[in-house]
Structures are given as C-alpha cells and as structure tokens.
C-alpha cells in the first residue's frame, strides 16, 4: 500500500477515532493542571515517595521477571514439554483475569489459613501491606509480558546456531551465554520494559494486597475519592511524565548498545 493511494486515505480515516480516543483524554489531562499546581504537587514528599515507590518496585519486578522468566521462556521456546500449551495458557492468565481477583488470590494463599502463608510467616515474609506483597503482585501481572516477549526472541534464534556451537565444543550453558544471550538480550530489555510498564500502571491487585505503603496509582485513586479530580490529576501527570522519560531513556540505551555491538 503506497502513500497517497485511496485505500491508505481510507485506512487513515478509519484509524483516526482510535488515535483520538488514545490521545485526547491524556492530552486534556496533561494540559489541565496549572504550573503552580504541578510544582506544589511534586514538592509534596508523599507524592514523590509514592511515584518513586511505584517506579522502583516496578523496575524490581521487571528485574525479577528477567531472572525468573528467562529460563521459563527458553524452556517454552525450545522444548516440546508435556502440557506446553497449558503452561502457556497459565502464563497468559494474568492478562485475562480481573486484577482485584489476582489480589484476592495472592492474599488467600499468603494468609495464615494456608500452609504457604504460614510458612512465609514463619520465615518472616509478610505479603499483606508490604513492599514484598506489592512486588509479588507486580510480578504476577507483568510476567506474561516478559515471558511472551523473550520467548519470541528465543524462537527467532535458529536452533542450528545453537547446534553449531555445540558441535564446535561448547557446552549447553556456554552456548546459551555465547550465542543465544547475545542474540536475544534486546528482547530481554524489551521484556523488562513491558513488564515494568505494566507494573507501574497496576492498581486493582495492589489496592487489595497493599493499600499501604502507597504506590502512585493508589494515591491517585485516594486523592480522587477524597478531594476530587483537581487534586488527583497532577500526580497522574507527573507519573506519566516520569514514566515516559524513563522508557525513552531505556529505549535509547537499548539502541545505543545495539549500535555499539554491531
């Protein structure tokens, strides 16, 4: 389809409502708060703490998904294990189910009525109302994005390259480190970005597992219900601006490493 062809104009026309639906509310919300209000909001240490907690815990969940999700993604990409489709379905489950349900599920498992909950309590790990609980929730909702992205990355590396490495004398782990990882680390960074992005936006499950310590989405909700739209909007704008800048930096970093390694 070439630019200027009638069909491309038609498709552009049909896409316009969708683009407006995505951009208009965000633009309206971003330009509405006054500069004074914005400065006042960011001077509030509770807001700063909530935003930095949201971003920090989300990045940590992204890192955990890298550490724990990479072996799983490799297994699913390379092996025809029994029940592979079922496992893939389970991994996609957090995308489908309502997020308060995720919170309730995690709470029911970590409560004192459950052996796992009792075990966690015995070893001093608290889920309810803690950062650990928040990380647990963020990992739960973000993992599908990481695993699916990285699995696609592993699938894009021809098996023959790994086989060639093995025939040249490298073991399985060395092959992974010398061939598979250098060819898929961009997918891993993209996966961490996707997982972190999803985690930053999480509200439904966090509000059930850990209302406090407060993350930015919970604070936005609290300010909205307690004081109205005017007071919640600036926090939302700051969260969007900071997250946007963070992801631009991460993307640029990926591109810069990409250029240096080629």
């Amino acid at each position, binding site marked *: 389809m070439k630019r200027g062809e009638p069909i491309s104009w038609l498709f552009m026309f049909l896409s316009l409502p969708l683009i407006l639906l995505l951009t208009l509310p965000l633009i309206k919300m971003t330009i509405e708060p006054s500069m004074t209000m914005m400065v006042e909001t960011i001077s509030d240490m509770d807001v700063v703490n909530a935003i930095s907690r949201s971003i920090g815990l989300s990045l940590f969940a992204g890192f955990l998904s890298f550490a724990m999700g990479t072996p799983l993604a490799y297994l699913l990409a390379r092996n025809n294990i029994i029940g592979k489709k079922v496992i893939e379905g389970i991994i996609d489950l957090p995308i489908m189910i309502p997020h308060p349900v995720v919170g309730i599920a995690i709470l029911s498992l970590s409560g004192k009525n459950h052996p796992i909950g009792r075990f966690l309590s015995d070893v001093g790990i608290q889920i309810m109302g803690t950062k650990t609980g928040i990380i647990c929730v963020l990992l739960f909702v973000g993992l599908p994005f990481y695993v699916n992205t990285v699995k696609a990355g592993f699938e894009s590396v021809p098996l023959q390259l790994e*086989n*060639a490495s*093995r025939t*040249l004398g490298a073991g399985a782990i*060395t092959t992974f480190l010398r061939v598979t990882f250098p060819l898929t680390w961009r997918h891993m960074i993209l996966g961490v970005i996707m997982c972190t992005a999803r985690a930053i936006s999480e509200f439904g499950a966090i509000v059930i597992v850990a209302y406090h310590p407060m993350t930015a989405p919970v604070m936005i909700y609290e300010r909205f219900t307690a004081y109205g739209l005017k007071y919640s909007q600036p926090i939302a704008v700051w969260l969007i601006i900071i997250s946007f800048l963070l992801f631009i930096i991460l993307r640029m970093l990926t591109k810069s490493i990409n250029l240096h390694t*080629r």
Partner: protein
Amino acid sequence: MIDLNHIHLTLPGFTIKDINLHIKKNDFFSLIGPTGSGKSLLLEGIMGLIPFSDGQLLLEGRDLIHCPVEKRNLAIVYQDFALFPHLDVTQNITYGVPYHNISKKEVQNRFDFLISTLGLKKIIKRTPKNLSGGEKQRVALARSLILNPRLLLLDEPLSALDPIFHEEAKQLLKKIHTELDITIIMVSHNFTDVIYLSNRGAIIKDGCIMQEGSIMSIFEKPNSLFSAHFVGMKNIHPIHQANNQIIIDGTHIKLTPASKPGKDVDFMGIRPEDISLNTFQSKNFTNCFKGKIQTIFNNGIFLNVVLQTEDICFEAIWPRSHLRDHALEINQIVNFGFHSQSVHTF
C-alpha cells in the same frame, strides 16, 4: 574409520531403519536421496544432535552413542552455514578453539593456513551479513577445519549457493579433501555434485539404505527402479527375457552374455548419453534402430532428443553441435544405436 551398525532413529512421523554403513579413512562419502528421505537426520544423529534409538556408532573403534555432541570432535557445515551473526569472521572461525586443547601457536598456524587456503584474508573483520554465499561457506569450513576434526560432515553444502559460487565451492571441497586428507560425509540430492566429489556413497529413501558402494557403481549399475531414477537413468522399461535378449513391447534389445540379467530382474534402463546418433550407419552398435525425432529440447549445453521407433520411445542426450552438423529437425527419421554394455537391468 566410522561404522554405523544397525542404526535406528525414531521421531514422530519418521523412522530411520537398520542403517549399516562403513566409511573408510579419507573417504568422501555421500548420502544421497530426495528431500525428506532422512539423510540430514542421519547426519545429525552421527553428530550427536539427535539421539539414535538403537545401534552402534563406532569411530575408530570407539562407540560414540553415549558421547555428548561437544565431546565428539566431529564438525558439521550446514546448508545455510549457521554462522554466528553477532561475531565477525575471525571470531566465528576461532569460536571453538577454547574448548579444544590446541596451543596458541598451533591455532595461529592453522588460522593462517586456512585464511590463505580459503582466500579469507580480505574479509576477516566482516560480519556474516556482509558476506556472499560463497564467502559464508568458506568461513563455515574454516570454523570447522581449525579444530582438526576427525570427521567433517557436510549438510547439502552446495544447494544454497548461486550458480556462480556453486562450481567454485565444488572445486574448493575437492581441494580440501585432497590437501587435508580428511574423511568427509556429505549429504546431497544432486547426483552431479556427488559424482564429481565422492568416491563412495549410499542412496537413502524413507530412512532406509537402498544401495551402497562406489559412486561409479551406483551411477552405472543402479539396483532398483528408485536408484535408477535418482541417478538420472532414462529409457526405463519393464522387460521380458528371451535368451540373450530382452523384449520391450515387441522391440528386441541384445545383451552381452555377461550382462544377462538374473531371474528377479524386472526393468531395464539406458543412460540417455549412451544412445548415439548413427546417421551414416558407420558405427558398429549391437543395437541399431531407426526412429522419428519427436522432440528436441536445446538447453544451451546439450540436446534432449526423444526418438520414436515403431514400438517404443528412446530418450537421448546429444551434443549441441549435432543440431548444426546433422541438421536435426522434428519428424526427421534418423538411425541411432547403443552398445549392449549400455543396457542396465535391475
């Protein structure tokens, strides 16, 4: 050198059955067969990338069945060369060096030798995406040969190359085999390449060996209808036998006493290049015929001619010069013939 004894390999939907092969030191052995016959699978089994279900794989008397792929010291060059895209040519060639007990001096000597033999000097800093098909193949060969493997496996090494590089690569493989005294097993479906490169080979079909032996014996004396088709035999007909003759639809074809077929022979075939034009009936053929030229296909190098006698058709390959020298044309009646030795029965 390498023996495959009663090798079986079972995968979902495909089985390799009871393969027995003996490959001698310095052989250039070809596994020949159509796509999906199991030849590449057998190669991967020898390499250790797919486990054989049963049988013995002996390399210089040592059973390799339970030996992991990285410890076998065999090398494989894939059809698409499988070069590591994130590494340059030098890094690709020396990739396997850390896993082998080779001194730095020896590595340098081998590297220099391969770079010069394979003509890679100008491209050692390039990455695979900036290499031509022929260059990629030479890098893949250097990457394998620097480790001084006991056996080199080539998986359709010529089929991914453009015609320009194809001939060049053929010469190179011949040179490597001759100069390095290395044992090679090559998988191919192109019998022309196999004849040029190999001394021995086997035809494989549906996971079974159909014929094994010297390449020329497979070429000249295929033992089955499948092998005959595969090695380019034409003029294949079911036969009836009578004394030293075979009869095809009323046409009598004389055989030499030595080539009298056994009882279980059902077909005969004649290579198209063994049927000659005999315009002035000057040649002393055992079998002479007169026939009408049905079609002439000039492929630029030679002529494919279909000749209709009273009872049967013959397909012949003649030099292009015949077109000019004998003014050949469709529907022309010509004399042609072939010697009894050219008649193969199976």
